[in-house]
């Protein structure tokens, strides 16, 4: 991935090309927030990385500063102004109703997005760039869907599930923001189902089962994206000037039966074709959890057209098939290594000592580099 200079073609937007230097990562404690902050830390052109979240970070970060805030827009605005942050990356979106209670998810997805946008709306706000991680749930899964959604397409029907409604609402407030602040370059990344070794999504959980359930008589088209590619796409959006909406989905759309074959597992078509949702509810109680938004995906599948992001200079590291194979490797290895890696716990005092204590030799890194004498 070449990130030289934001020389993207002018798109007729009011926002001018802008180089990100001081970045706010919202949702630092989510998987994506942590991964992105990690990636940004290794980039010397980024002067400051501030992360906010309501819970403590789950990754060990070196120079990212963590501020524990909920979604209070006044506080976010204060932080943005105080640190003169020019770029905001919003990675908080909850896209799996099994990981969060529905009320909390709504609070986070809709109200949270609104508040973060409110924190950047002021006329003299220093924010010049906003990157929003959205989801392919925006499009939904319906019978009369096109084979490949392009970014211009609206979903053909009203959203059916809570998560889909949230995503649509969050994107609506995002496009309102675009109208209100035409000088801010807003990039929306609609990510499809992510596969990765550290990720626990409903999809990876389902694919980890020895027999993978399918809906009888359906073999949906599935598209995935590797988690490294999502992090790189977020990074790409931070460094490049690319206002607009982009689909993030790896090359290749697989049939679910093909996915199961690649993992070396067997399908078991036990879900009934009619009343699947009603059948899924008692299964959930048994610990086999299919979220509402996944039911239609298991029935109709979904494909995204990823060419717009590629045209913006992004190159995917994995195809859908390779992402599935990677997951297969992980699933075989997981029982062997599970529990052997020490978990990281955030300790405020330790972090503050490492960052601010006069006794910590912080100059070492600068010393390694040749001095400009």
């Amino acid at each position, binding site marked *: 991935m070449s990130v030289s200079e934001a020389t993207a073609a002018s798109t007729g*937007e009011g926002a001018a090309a802008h180089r990100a230097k001081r970045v706010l990562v919202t949702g630092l404690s989510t998987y994506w927030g942590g991964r992105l902050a990690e990636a940004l830390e290794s980039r010397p052109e980024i002067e400051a990385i501030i992360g906010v979240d309501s819970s403590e970070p789950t990754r060990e970060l070196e120079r990212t500063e963590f501020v524990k805030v909920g979604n209070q827009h006044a506080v976010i605005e204060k932080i943005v102004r105080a640190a003169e942050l020019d770029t905001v990356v919003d990675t908080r979106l909850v896209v799996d109703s099994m990981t969060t209670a529905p009320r909390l998810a709504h609070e986070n997805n809709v109200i949270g997005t609104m508040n973060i946008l409110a924190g950047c709306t002021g006329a003299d706000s220093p924010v010049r760039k906003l990157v929003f991680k959205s989801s392919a749930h925006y499009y939904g899964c319906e019978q009369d869907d096109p*084979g490949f959604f392009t970014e*211009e397409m609206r979903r053909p029907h009203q959203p059916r599930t809570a998560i889909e409604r949230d995503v649509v609402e969050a994107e609506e407030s995002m496009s309102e923001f675009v109208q209100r602040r035409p000088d801010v370059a807003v990039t*929306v990344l609609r990510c499809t189902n992510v596969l990765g070794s550290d990720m626990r999504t409903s999809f990876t959980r389902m694919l980890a089962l020895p027999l993978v359930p399918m809906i009888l008589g359906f073999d949906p088209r599935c598209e995935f994206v590797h988690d490294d590619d999502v992090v790189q796409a977020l990074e790409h959006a931070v460094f490049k000037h690319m206002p607009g909406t982009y689909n993030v989905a790896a090359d*290749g*759309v697989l049939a679910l039966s093909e996915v199961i074959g690649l993992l070396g597992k067997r399908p078991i078509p036990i879900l009934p074709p009619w009343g699947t949702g009603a059948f899924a509810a008692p299964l959930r109680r048994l610990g086999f959890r299919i979220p509402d938004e996944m039911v239609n995906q298991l029935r109709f599948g979904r494909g995204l057209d990823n060419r717009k992001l590629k045209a913006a200079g992004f190159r995917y590291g994995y195809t859908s098939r390779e992402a599935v194979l990677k997951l297969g490797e992980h699933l075989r290895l997981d029982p062997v290594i599970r529990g052997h890696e020490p978990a990281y716990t955030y300790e405020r005092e330790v972090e503050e000592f490492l960052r601010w204590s006069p006794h910590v030799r912080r100059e070492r890194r600068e010393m390694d580099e040749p001095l400009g004498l």
Partner: protein
Amino acid sequence: MAAERTSLAGTSGTEPTEGGRSPAAPAERTRELLPAIEPERTITDWGRSERIEGLLDRTLVDFLFRYWFRCEVEGIENVPAEGGVLLVSNHSGALPPDAAVIAKAIREEHSGTRPLHITVEHFFKGYPGFSALIPKIGCVPAHPANVHRLLHDERQLVLVFPEGRKGTEKTYNHRYQLRRFGRGGFVEAAARAEAKIVPVCVVGAEEAMPVFAQLNFVKRLTGLLYFPITPTFPWLGPLGMFTYLPAKFRIRFLEPIDTASLTMEPAPDTAMVQTVAQEVRARIQENLDEMVASRESVWFG
């Protein structure tokens, strides 16, 4: 890219008013950026499975084509060897055999090896069994965006039945009388994709599965697309849907029609689109009439 993309959204009835517009790039670019084909895979991005299609082709379709329907193919040279081509055919039979035999005719007789993509109703995607099988054998849901991607970006061969359900619903006494050709959407799709239109006439399909009546109340009761009465359905149960009488088939590919003269930008020339649609329909009807008139026997041709 912008031009095709926005026009594409136009055909699907939505308007592109997102935050950012894609940077303008030539059509070549959209093709370059298509996902590369992974040789290890046997299923395409559309869900087409070489294995299942091949299996069906070697067994059932081959038997029907060669021995049951004894298909005769004329004018196969009218199917261009490359570029996006839209085949437009008449349509009949409750579970239409015409698509399968046209695909087989191209596979058998055409000099190149061009896979044929058959557009089908969305209905099938929601129906268990069909939903899993139909994409495997080369069918794609008839969405304008799908047709555009196949014709313009992937430069494939696509078969459409503009009569749609009106064609397969019609009863035996209306055989070989073309229904309305939709709203000319297929001409628009071809013109936007700069694809040629090849009209196709199929004779024999109407007799292979004559529909004597449509029971609309049973259709509503069962939620099926339609509920026809044929010589074998519903008497033989679901199997009756797949039972064809051994009518003699004749397939004729007519000369390609160029759509380059049609103006699509900024807005489609509706009058011209309708004229071309009418012309395609008239040519198919004319040839059908001629083929039926010259046929001595329904069963022996």
